[in-house]
């Protein structure tokens, strides 16, 4: 909703502590009545100097730090780092490690999207989906806890292998969970996604055109919500995703222009179902083996540099590692998907109403840990 601005512009601060900003984000809004003339995001409140730390510790010790960037999808963060170093060193892992990594990454994708959907419903005003999503997420976290002892920050993906093998009975519990969970997504759709009020709040708001999305480097569900069919798992497959059969959901603009908040949200919900399919196939492809057989005794990559990206729930996560042949990374730079999406926020939220700012922010699904590192 674009309008002309008349009268004075008032500065309103959605401060670092706020229930709807998904972390410590400060939004400086310049409003003219209800319409927002400018929304400037200020980040850096959660900056923990990850890249500097990475230069002072050895490669294996960087692993736990990567968890803490996007704490809602820690398995994917670790996976990206581990795959980058393995590619630099030329390590090949066996099939069991590959399948378990896929299972864990996709389960974490489901858990992360459940958080996104639940908190988005909460921001829009519907509290119940939040609890339903977290109830289902509990089973996933129980599965993780059983395997590696932690619910949120795992340190499970190691360079060359995994921390531990799956416990006996894991596959059975996993399939039971998937059988229970897939109808629950339909329940959630009936409650929230197809709700008339929710659609009115989100389907004409926060339009991100495909050209703007690519120019701003937006990736992941945010890009796919604008109709651009691009997913690293399909376009530059890693971990053998080319052998797994799944679809890429894309926003089609069913209730409004393509690239609205509703499209981005719906892409995530549909991705959850696709992730269930991927997990089932990965379980079927599991073979016995030793998960720690390819772990090198000393992690000393050759001199050189590498950039590799993986698809994490919030977009494309890229790691750029410069190695000088030593035991510690010379330079580790992370390209965080939420960072690029937040750079587009100012453009997308111009002309929106104050209530729409919340809707747009929720639909981008940001985690400040990843933006600030």
């Amino acid at each position, binding site marked *: 909703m674009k309008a002309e601005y008349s009268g004075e512009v008032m500065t309103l601060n959605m401060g670092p502590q706020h229930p709807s900003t998904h972390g410590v984000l400060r939004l400086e809004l310049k409003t003219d009545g209800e319409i927002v003339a400018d929304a400037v995001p200020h980040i850096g409140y959660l900056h923990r*100097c990850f890249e500097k730390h990475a230069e002072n510790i050895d490669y294996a010790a960087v692993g736990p730090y990567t968890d803490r960037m996007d704490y809602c999808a820690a398995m994917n963060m670790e996976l990206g780092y581990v795959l980058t170093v393995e590619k630099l060193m030329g390590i090949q892992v066996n099939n069991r490690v590959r399948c378990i990594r896929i299972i864990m990454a996709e389960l974490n994708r489901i858990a992360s999207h459940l958080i996104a959907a639940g908190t988005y419903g909460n921001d829009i005003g519907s509290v119940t989906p939040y609890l339903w999503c977290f109830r289902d997420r509990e089973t996933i976290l129980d599965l993780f806890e059983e395997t590696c002892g932690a619910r949120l920050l795992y340190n499970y993906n190691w360079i060359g292998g995994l921390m531990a093998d799956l416990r006996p009975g894991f596959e059975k519990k996993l399939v039971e969970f998937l059988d229970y969970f897939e109808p629950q997504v339909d329940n959630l759709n009936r409650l929230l996604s197809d709700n008339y009020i929710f659609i009115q709040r989100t389907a004409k708001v926060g339009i991100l055109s495909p050209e703007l999305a690519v120019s701003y480097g937006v990736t992941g569900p945010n890009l796919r919500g604008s109709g*651009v069919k691009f997913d690293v798992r399909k376009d530059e497959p890693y971990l053998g995703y080319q052998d797994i059969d799944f679809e890429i959901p894309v926003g089609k603009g069913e209730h409004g222009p393509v690239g609205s908040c509703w499209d981005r949200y719906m892409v995530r919900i549909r991705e959850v179902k696709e992730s269930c399919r991927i997990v089932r196939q990965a379980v079927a492809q599991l073979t016995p083996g030793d998960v720690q057989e390819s772990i090198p005794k000393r992690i000393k990559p050759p001199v050189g540099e*590498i*950039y590799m990206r993986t698809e994490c729930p919030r977009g494309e996560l890229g790691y750029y590692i410069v190695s000088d042949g030593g035991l510690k990374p010379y330079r580790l730079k992370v390209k965080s998907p939420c960072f690029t999406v937040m750079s587009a926020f100012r453009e997308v939220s111009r002309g929106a109403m104050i209530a729409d700012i919340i809707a747009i922010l929720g639909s981008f699904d940001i985690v400040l840990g990843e933006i600030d590192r």
Partner: protein
Amino acid sequence: MTPGEIAALLTEGFGSRVLESKPDAINPWSAVEPSAILEIAQFVRSDERLSMDHLELLGGVDYKDRIEVVYVLFSMTHRHRYTLKCRMPREAPGIHTVESVWAVANWHEREAYDMFGIVFEGHSDLRRILCPDDWEGYPLRKDYKFPTTYRDMPV
């Protein structure tokens, strides 16, 4: 296009301003003159054979004798990736901004300025992004000394 072809296209277009190319490395790259970056950026974006419309990463690296700015570029249409590097002296690292070519460069360049002190000419809003606005020093430089006080508070 293969990295070799991209490197050839760049040298053909810009001659001596492309200093060095390593298309066979695990991450193929070309080092270019910092003064030519805007032209090269516009070229790789608009040229149909390259059409690098996605700036994946813009970061600084502090080698002991120089500071480099790394541009990892990707093309959504052709699905190829290439890296550009610009080397600058450590004393006064400065380069023209590419935010008119890729809008996301705005924030990436702010981070590079924050962490390394690289000044991007023509940037619309060059100020610190991760550190507080009045922080002193450039943290990711190799010779960075962590300050003992910030605003008279012991750190």
